């Protein structure tokens, strides 16, 4: 679940996010073309990570379904941080992923990276470091309270496995998705 967490080492799977204010928690993820945004409020001492892969028609701006889905995933993470005492104006971001792997012919990885950078830029959230693109996947660890992040570049074979797990499909929307006529 995308809930508050207190166990120590937590893996963030595609389409999900986790937030924590526990200093000993490490958020981890494995990325091929996917992007993970790691956000933190250094004053409130709370941070979190999401992990997304937008459908292939996503682009940096635009108004398509894919962009709305990406904005939704960023908003869920930001809302969860605000609920734990973060302030939007203090948030800082680290971005990882978006590899342009050989097994994916489209440039979906690059588009995901561009989307994340544009979103954060539009929202006035500073990106303090990023590692985007390239042709190999990444294993990322993020300490949400200290903001420390570490990445290991995957081998070619590991990258293929990571990409094979990635599904560029939007998950089912929230329960209130059905139009409610009062």
């Amino acid at each position, binding site marked *: 679940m995308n809930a508050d967490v207190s166990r120590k080492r937590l893996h963030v799977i595609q389409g999900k996010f986790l937030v924590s204010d526990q200093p000993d928690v490490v958020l981890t993820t494995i990325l091929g073309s996917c992007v993970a945004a790691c956000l933190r409020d250094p004053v409130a001492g709370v941070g979190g990570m999401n992990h997304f892969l937008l459908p292939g028609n996503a682009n940096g701006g635009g*108004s398509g379904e894919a962009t709305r889905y990406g*904005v939704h995933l960023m908003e869920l993470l930001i809302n969860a941080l605000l609920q734990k005492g973060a302030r939007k104006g203090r948030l800082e971001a680290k971005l990882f992923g978006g590899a342009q792997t050989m097994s994916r012919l489209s440039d979906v990885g690059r588009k995901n990276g561009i989307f994340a950078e544009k979103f954060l830029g539009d929202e006035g959230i500073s990106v303090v470091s990023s590692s985007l693109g390239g042709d190999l996947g990444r294993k990322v660890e993020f300490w949400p309270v200290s903001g420390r992040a570490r990445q290991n570049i995957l081998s070619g074979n590991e990258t293929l496995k990571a990409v094979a797990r990635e599904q560029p499909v939007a998950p089912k*929307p929230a329960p209130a*998705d059905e139009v409610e006529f009062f």
Partner: protein
Amino acid sequence: MSMAQKIKALIVDDQVTSRLLLGDALQQLGFTQVTVAGDGEQAYQIMQKDPHHLVISDFNMPKMDGLGLLEAIRGNAATKRAAFIILTAQGDRALVQKAASLGANNVLAKPFTIDKMKAAIEAVFGAL
């Protein structure tokens, strides 16, 4: 002039990106009179000076949230007849019921689709 062109719409969301997406969506539906506000307080000030026909508001916002804005708008004779649609990233039944009890016309989950937005607006105003 189409119905969409006649309606004055107010978009309320604390996220710049969401405001842009909503603005794009309304433009695609034929709206030409669209105002934006960054939170409920600002939206309510705009509504007091210049009542809009339609308010599409995020739920989760600083200062005054979407339900607070709805309550304020329904409590003011000059604005209480406005159509009010709430958008929420965290769709749960309790929120939907609270919104209904406060007089919301609709609750839509994010990420919304253009078709669902159109249906929600047309349920109030008729064909756009």
